[in-house]
């Protein structure tokens, strides 16, 4: 009996180890003919987990609503078909992201793939759509490099990051025109060393060159994405004696950098972290330390459109929390644009859907301007809204004027 136990234990363990791969290989995703399979590749673990999760919620809300209305009308099938989501978590890893997008396109027979939060992951995935001729709509990658390779199946629901940079500069310029800020102020730029950072910096530089006299860029340096320490960089920013500090950072870097900014005791007349600023995680981490930070974002829940109000309500009902920053909206609209394209194509044929995506116009879009339309390179070009954090956790749209829900507070008061 004594000898039997280890034998049985080993047999059990090795049966499990050998059986696992076989089980997984046999465990292919259920394929149903009467559905519209849509691949979703987003990070819900790793450093981009939070924004990835919010984007997933946006897509799933859209799918839920589409299915509640009977699904997507596919003319060549003569009926409405429900959407079937095939979700993959890329763990915020570029190689995995490309690999899973490829898997969805090559083996899951999806009509399209949505996702790729962050430019870095989007860059890796963007190779696959043309290879497998499957439409791909990135919901969270905005760098122009993704869209300037002549790819035919690549689309994106984020406006270019260069526009974010120029909108940021334009907003600051408007504060100068209003007399809130002086002309000739010195800018310090800290840019993540990716195409996203390059585009953001270019946008600011281009605007400054086109509008001489408004600002002088006295400092511009890149930093590593996901760096644990920005104290050296911030010390240089301090030494530059700039009046305005503009960084382009992802959520985790924004929180880390701004925490160290606060610890350093620095003060600038205006401060921004690009498209990050109003996130609830940042307020939870730093409290009123995030007051007065402004951000250029692709969408705000404060936009005064009826469809936005309805979305806010539906989203809260669906997830139990309010939309955080812009993340769920661009994903929600990507799914709705795909629905419109499939209905317009009247088919699940991927090339026909791609052709329809090129001409689709979502006229009740949540995004600023209320119309979502892909440009010739596949990327949309909707305007940005500038929001500013206010004391007490309030976030106001402060630019453009016609959408503003509050006044800009500039310069930032010293505490």
């Amino acid at each position: 009996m004594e000898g039997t136990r280890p034998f049985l234990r080993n047999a059990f363990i090795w049966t499990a180890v050998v059986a696992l791969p076989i089980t997984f290989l046999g465990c292919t995703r259920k394929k149903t003919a009467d559905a519209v399979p849509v691949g979703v590749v987003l990070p819900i673990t790793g450093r981009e987990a939070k924004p990835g999760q919010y984007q997933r919620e946006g897509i799933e809300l859209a799918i839920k609503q589409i299915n509640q209305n009977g699904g997507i009308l596919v003319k060549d099938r003569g009926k409405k078909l429900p959407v079937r989501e095939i979700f993959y978590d890329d763990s915020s890893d570029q190689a995995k992201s490309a690999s899973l997008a490829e898997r969805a396109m090559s083996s899951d027979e999806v009509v399209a793939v949505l996702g790729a939060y962050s430019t870095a992951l989007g860059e890796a995935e963007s190779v696959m759509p043309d290879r497998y001729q499957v439409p791909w709509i990135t919901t969270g990658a905005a760098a122009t490099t993704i869209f300037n390779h002549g790819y035919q199946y690549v689309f994106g629901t984020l406006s270019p990051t260069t526009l974010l940079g120029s909108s940021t500069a334009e907003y600051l310029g408007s504060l100068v025109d209003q007399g809130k800020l002086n002309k000739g102020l010195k800018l310090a730029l800290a840019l993540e060393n990716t195409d996203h950072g390059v585009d953001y910096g270019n946008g600011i530089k281009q605007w400054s060159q086109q509008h001489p006299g408004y600002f002088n860029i006295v400092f511009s340096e890149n930093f590593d994405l996901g760096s644990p320490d920005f104290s050296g960089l911030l010390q240089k920013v301090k030494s530059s004696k700039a009046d305005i500090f503009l960084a382009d950072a992802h959520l985790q870097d924004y929180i880390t950098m701004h925490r160290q900014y606060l610890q350093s005791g620095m003060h600038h007349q205006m401060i921004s972290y690009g498209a990050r600023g109003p996130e609830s995680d940042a307020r939870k981490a730093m409290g009123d330390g995030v007051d007065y930070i402004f951000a250029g974002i692709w969408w705000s829940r404060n936009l005064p459109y009826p469809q936005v109000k309805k979305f806010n309500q539906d989203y809260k009902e669906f997830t139990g929390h309010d939309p955080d920053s812009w993340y769920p909206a661009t994903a929600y609209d990507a799914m709705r644009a795909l629905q419109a394209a499939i209905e317009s194509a009247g088919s699940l044929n991927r090339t026909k859907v791609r052709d329809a995506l090129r001409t689709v116009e979502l006229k009740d879009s949540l995004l600023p301007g209320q119309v979502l339309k892909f440009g010739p390179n596949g990327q949309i070009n909707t305007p940005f809204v500038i929001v500013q954090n206010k004391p007490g956790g309030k976030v106001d749209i402060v630019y453009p004027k016609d959408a503003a829900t509050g006044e800009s507070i500039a310069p930032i008061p010293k505490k």
Partner: protein
Amino acid sequence: MSATSATLPARRMAGWAMTALPWILLAILAILPLLVPSPNFTRLLFMTFLWTTTSIAWNLLGGFAGQVSFGFAVFYGAGAYTTALLMNAGVNPLFAFLAAGLTAALVSLIVGLPAFRLRGPYFAIATIGISEAVRVVMTNLSFTGGASGYRILEHRPFRQLEHYYTALLLAAIAFAISWKIAHSKFGLGLKAIRQDEDAAADLGVNPYTYKLAAHALAAALTGMAGGVFARYAAFIHPGGVFGFHTSVHILLMPVIGGIGTVWGPVLGGFVFGIVEEEIVASFPEIHLLLYGLLLIVIILFEPGGILGGLRKLVRRFRDHR
């Protein structure tokens, strides 16, 4: 008939089977994508061959010679970037892969010459440092795209089978090299170094030269694997190919399969290549938990890896008969 003479034919049969097994496996893998024409299956096996190649390569140094390196991503990345740069300059992919192997081997000498002055954990720590330093440099090197990554623009249609057979051939070459070394005087020298470096030196083995040679060979194979991957992915970036997690993956496979053996790294490569992705794909919410559990089960209950466990199982099965 004596017991010895009765077991002799059985032993011979087992020997022939072991010699024939790689060829049979190679033949099966060569026809498999034709029998199962699924792009996803082909891609999964393609990646598995690359992981297997790196696993075998790491085992040459870490398994046979006992030098635990956490820096193999340096060679993988060097190979990937060499291939990418050369291919964009119009060089034939096959020459680019060879150049990738050569570059990685040269890099291994630059790394190895100072690092092999260190032993045990000090060597392992040094490789971590070198790996991170190289990643940071590559992240800030503008002509390779820096942190934004580098795109390979190949002006010809994508043919998945071409990539598949390249990876299969590379894995087969890696296996053949590993097999040859395991049964050679050089291999014995490496094993002697693993057991006692000073004693090996007393017996006439030059540990420094042996380690450098094994390191260069392993680096060349890893570099070529990186090159083949870069061509397939068409987009590479320092955080991926030079990432610390790449080094850990490369190290983990021989540990899973059975360190210091010929077949262990192959098994490890297959388990890692297939199971990891299948878990990610099938259970997106709990894939890290499941993968972690699988690793814990293997490492806790079977330090000898899958191969060690299978051997034990066979032995116990024989004893029970």
